[in-house]
């Protein structure tokens, strides 16, 4: 019988099939971070349980670590307590931890692939919704709550209702791949499908534009599957995938044998059918800027901030939400996006903090200065990304232009550490969520690509990067 890639991975991980659509799935890799794990470890202790597979469990601290000088203690006592709790828990239960001083530390979804923990055809979970990122490697990867973190620690398995399959086809080629990025494609998809479009489903991204992408671009795409409502997004692995991983630290010893198997098997069969399908043309996509308080509230950079009724297309609930979003964002409907002035720029997060993101952004910045009154920062996704960028001299380019160059972590994507917006501040951000207060109470977030964020930092307002020479 013909199967989709998702169905193949699902079927090969079923431990118990209840026969009613619900199955117990085996988890190949479990990633753990400091914010969503303390209560899970407490639960194990309370019930006298152990971690079943310490060798498949990897932890790091990323959400509330400071991105300033690492030799100083963490000032926020509650953050320090959470970081200490993770250290204590990993030691007690025997789990590998990449701690704040480790050269491998970084955002959990950046270091998984970097260290070869992420593999095609595997199931990967983490107490974080952006676990979908790892789907770029053809892994079935999704976020879970803390109760499920405890469940996976104790049993290495997870119960799931079988989700629907949803094909997202991105056909053709991007007109200007330096200016129209993976981020713009993903924001366009979410804009069209809505933030609940993928609820109950897993996306599989296909088509020429996806095949043309580098691994890091595919990670940006899969990362934001959750913003489209899908718990996971997949891309079938290819030679780029296998090359990207080759030589990385935690690969199994028989990696090449596995590659041979994956090459033959990890793809959707020709006659397989999806429950739903959606297609867009890469050539029609422009750089995107979000204007509201959820990622579907997004327009082309050349457009104007929409009127609520124009955005809602007859849905009264959405119209109310859009009016409220405009009020929160301090924007007037009809304002050209390129006239929106910004106060802050954040280049980072599990969506856009990898080496390619920084290289692309640095091209815009090189030899220029951050606009007066704008505060801009770059937060590399991991210590490895930071080091590679510094070896290329990117830190100098950013610093010379007036950017802050930081240590790795989640930082201002969610502002659990000291990196936050003040009320009313407007930020061009390469992160994934523009929810109210996400980057700081009263802060106003515009989601953009790294090149769009860099260009906004220099101009002081949004600009169309297609007008720049980015080659």
């Amino acid at each position, binding site marked *: 019988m013909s199967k989709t890639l998702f169905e193949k991975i699902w079927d090969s991980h079923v431990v118990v099939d209840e026969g009613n659509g619900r199955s*117990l799935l085996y988890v190949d890799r479990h990633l753990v971070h400091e*914010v969503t794990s303390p209560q899970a470890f407490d639960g194990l202790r309370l019930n006298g349980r152990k971690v079943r597979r310490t*060798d498949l469990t990897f932890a790091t601290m990323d959400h509330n670590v400071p991105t300033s000088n690492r030799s100083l203690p963490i000032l926020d006592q509650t953050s320090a307590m959470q970081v200490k709790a993770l250290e204590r828990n990993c030691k007690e239960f025997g789990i590998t931890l990449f701690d704040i001083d480790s050269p491998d530390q970084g955002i959990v979804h950046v270091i998984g692939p970097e260290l070869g923990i992420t593999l095609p055809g595997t199931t990967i979970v983490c*107490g974080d919704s952006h676990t979908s990122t790892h789907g770029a490697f053809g892994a079935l990867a999704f976020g879970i709550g*803390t109760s499920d973190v405890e469940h996976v620690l104790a049993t290495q398995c997870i119960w799931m209702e079988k989700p629907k399959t949803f094909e997202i086809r991105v056909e053709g080629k991007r007109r200007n791949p330096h200016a129209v990025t993976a981020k713009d494609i993903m924001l366009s998809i979410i804009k069209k499908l809505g933030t*609940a479009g993928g609820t109950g489903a897993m996306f599989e991204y296909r088509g020429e534009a996806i095949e043309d992408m580098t691994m890091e671009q595919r990670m940006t795409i899969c990362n934001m599957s959750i913003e489209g409502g899908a718990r996971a997004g997949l891309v079938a692995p290819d030679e780029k995938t296998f090359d990207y991983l080759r030589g990385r*630290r935690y690969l199994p010893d028989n990696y090449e044998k*596995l590659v041979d198997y994956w090459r033959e098997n990890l793809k959707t069969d020709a006659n397989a059918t999806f429950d739903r399908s959606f297609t867009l043309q890469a050539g029609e996509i422009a750089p995107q800027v979000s204007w509201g308080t959820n990622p579907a509230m997004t327009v082309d950079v050349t457009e104007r901030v929409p009127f609520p009724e124009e955005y809602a297309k007859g849905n009264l609930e959405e119209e109310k939400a859009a009016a409220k979003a405009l009020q929160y964002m301090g924007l007037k409907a009809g304002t050209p996006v390129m006239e929106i002035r910004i106060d802050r720029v954040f280049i980072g997060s599990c969506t856009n903090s990898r080496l390619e993101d920084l290289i692309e952004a640095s091209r815009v910045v090189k030899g220029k200065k951050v606009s007066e009154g704008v505060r801009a920062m770059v937060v590399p996704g991991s210590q490895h990304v930071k080091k590679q960028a510094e070896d290329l001299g990117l830190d100098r380019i950013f610093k010379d232009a007036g950017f802050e160059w930081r240590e790795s972590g989640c930082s201002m994507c969610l502002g659990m550490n000291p990196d936050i917006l003040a009320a009313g501040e407007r930020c061009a951000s390469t992160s994934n969520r523009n929810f109210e207060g996400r980057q700081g109470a009263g802060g106003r977030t515009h989601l953009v690509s790294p090149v769009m964020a860099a260009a906004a930092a220099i101009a002081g307002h949004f600009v169309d990067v297609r007008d720049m020479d980015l080659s």
Partner: protein
Amino acid sequence: MEPFTKIRSIATPLDKVNVDTDQIIPKQFLKLIQKTGFGQYLFFDWRFQSDGTPRKEFVLNHPKYQGSKILLARNNFGCGSSREHAAWALLDFGFRVIISTSFADIFYNNCFKNGILPIRVGEQVLQKLFETDGEVEVDLQNQAIRGDGIDVRFEIEPHWKKILLEGLDDIAATLLHQDEISRYESSHRDMNPKSS
């Protein structure tokens, strides 16, 4: 986990679409390392002004809805972050039932794991509930919602119904499958990471 039977209470109408977990519990409150005490921070920025005084216009602050155990929400409730703190905050505040047209997947699971019943209903039923003034009864055993002029059945996955009715420990139930798990593991060793 407290077993769930019947809940009867006034229903709090939260008339907003796409409510994300960042609104349900803002990030500054995710630093606690226990599961209790999150209720005071529920919908923090919507409930309180920056000086800490309650926002009178926000529905949860209305005297009529104090002690309510049922929350009515618009489409796509609980989207965004996987933080289970959102479920802990709702429970700690006193909500045992949330009724909406749809929920985000991770949040939906997190509710059941903590003894909260999330119910999906059609748009017309939800609208009727939003308009009702009196108490609403949610009867899990019979999968029914009853109120003034309302008597409808709802769907729920049988597994979750059982978990809620009996207040079961999920992990203990899974560990009954030890043999199957071990068998799976011994036949899939080739995917193990290199130990270092």
